[in-house]
């Protein structure tokens, strides 16, 4: 990807476009996911990660974007796959995606692209943070429910803290 995609520009969609939702395709760990574009504030370049002592297991630090302090959450620990620093970008989920209403940055790797498509229902066995799948050619790509993913990150952090205390 050459330049970060800024989806905060509210270009008015046509009726046909409205029927087909827009998604940002990203790679988290080793898997490709689609994130609803309306919940993606920005795909940010690999800016400096600021670290300081804390005990929240799934948060690795914070980045500064547009004058705001944004926590970086390791979604790869939830969705599976190895962490990689190769070709790192940050998907910044819109504040409405998290219960706290704050922006959250999720490290993503490799090429990202904006696609349009129709979402199909998720499989019954799919985890809560997968809200459907997107058919692109012959590949079915899981669509992330960013709100549920943010919740899963919070729950997982609480669980690992409880385990640490016991």
């Amino acid at each position, binding site marked *: 990807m050459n330049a970060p995609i800024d989806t905060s520009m509210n270009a008015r969609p046509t009726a046909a476009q409205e029927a087909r939702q827009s998604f940002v395709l990203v790679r988290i760990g080793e898997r490709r996911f689609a994130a609803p574009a309306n919940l993606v504030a920005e795909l940010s370049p690999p800016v*400096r990660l*600021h670290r*300081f*002592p*804390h*005990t*929240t297991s799934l*948060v690795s630090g*914070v980045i*500064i974007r547009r004058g705001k*302090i*944004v*926590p970086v*959450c390791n979604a790869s620990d939830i969705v599976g796959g190895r962490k990689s620093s190769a070709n790192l970008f940050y998907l910044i989920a819109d504040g409405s995606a*998290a219960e*706290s209403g*704050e922006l*959250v940055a999720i490290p993503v790797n490799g090429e990202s692209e904006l696609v349009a498509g129709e979402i199909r229902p998720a499989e019954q066995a799919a985890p809560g943070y997968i809200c459907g799948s997107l058919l692109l050619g012959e590949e079915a790509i899981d669509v992330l429910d960013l709100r549920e993913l943010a919740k899963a*990150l*919070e729950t997982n*952090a*609480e669980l690992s*803290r409880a385990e640490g205390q016991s």
Partner: protein
Amino acid sequence: MKFATFEPAKERRSGPSEAIILFSVSNQTFAIAASDVQEIRSTDSLSGTANEIDCPDLPKVRHTIDRARQKYYVVNAAQHFGLPVSRPTLVLILRQLRAAILVDRIDRMTEISAAYPLPRAFTGEERRWYRGLTYIDDHVIPVVQPAGFLTSQEFWRLEEAAHQASQRELEGARL
């Protein structure tokens, strides 16, 4: 606060600002409001006046110092923040709390216009440790909350341990 090496700020920014002290522990920088610190002393100056305290479930506190007829608990900041063991050379004696904090060094004193709230994604002990984050010279620095160094429960346990130690001393003297 007694701090001889403090240089007055060269430029004054408009709007409210807060004087803070930047200090380091295990190569990690923290900030504390200057108004929260009563005095900064070298650890050498405390040798001979510090008393040992044995509270096994609170290993971050191993000494007490007496000041103005009050017992101050000395907290090792590296252990408090879960950082690698360091060699503290200074102790920050807090103003509102009977606690003194062992730190490696003071970096400098500066002014900040605001401490930004800690993002709510942070849900652990850091919510008690820090009152916010500040951004200085391209670095995000946590601003510590003095009351976060020792909870009231920890204080109670330390008071208990100190009381038991003085009882043992008295009994030893009688024998």
